[in-house]
């Protein structure tokens, strides 16, 4: 069965310093993996996704994630944090095998709250 584990419930960084949010996955198939972000009182916004193409995936707002099969990890990084990055971040796996999420459900990690200090 597919699952994701986010290793930190809360991460605090200073503005301008790198961000690392850690995620490990478990999947019987070649997984589709996603990072979503949720700002306060907003919906869940897709940051980036991995679907068995390039292992280094670039997303919006300068975020990127690297799929490492040997480590079953999909960590989210950003070289330089901005105050507007403060939000909750979810690592997500799709239950459906293959390139496209053909209607399958998403399984969410428990979330990592990112705080950015001035």
């Amino acid at each position, binding site marked *: 069965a597919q699952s994701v584990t986010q290793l930190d419930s809360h991460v605090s960084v200073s503005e301008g310093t790198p961000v690392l949010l850690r995620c490990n996955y478990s999947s019987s198939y070649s997984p589709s993996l996603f990072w979503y972000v949720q700002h306060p009182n907003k919906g*869940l*916004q897709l940051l980036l996704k991995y679907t068995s193409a390039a292992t280094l995936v670039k997303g919006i707002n300068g975020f990127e994630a690297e799929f490492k099969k040997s480590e079953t990890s999909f960590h989210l990084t950003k070289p330089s944090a901005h105050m507007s990055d403060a939000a909750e971040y979810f690592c997500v796996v799709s239950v459906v095998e293959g390139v*496209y*999420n053909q*209607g399958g*459900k998403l399984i969410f990690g428990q979330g990592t709250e990112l705080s950015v200090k001035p």
Partner: protein
Amino acid sequence: EPEVTQTPSHQVTQMGQEVILRCVPISNHLYFYWYRQILGQKVEFLVSFYNNEISEKSEIFDDQFSVERPDGSNFTLKIRSTKLEDSAMYFCASSDMSNQYFGPGTRLLVL
């Protein structure tokens, strides 16, 4: 840019009452979903809907829950007799077979 919308943003109800949560998916999407997030817990899948029928449901989605696409644009979640433990943020999502796009959520509080 098209987006998923949900109404109401907040709903307070008494235990045992029926509630209907409404969603307007992105217009050319074919797959629709409801998820919920109880305060302090993970976002959980409830149900997926395709071609006017449920394609998958979780064990949470028992007989008190139902979904409907009444008019070709709205997608609703009905909770027949609410319980205290139904208090949560409910998210609607729609999919173009590539990505799922989420609405802002409805915060339901059952008293």
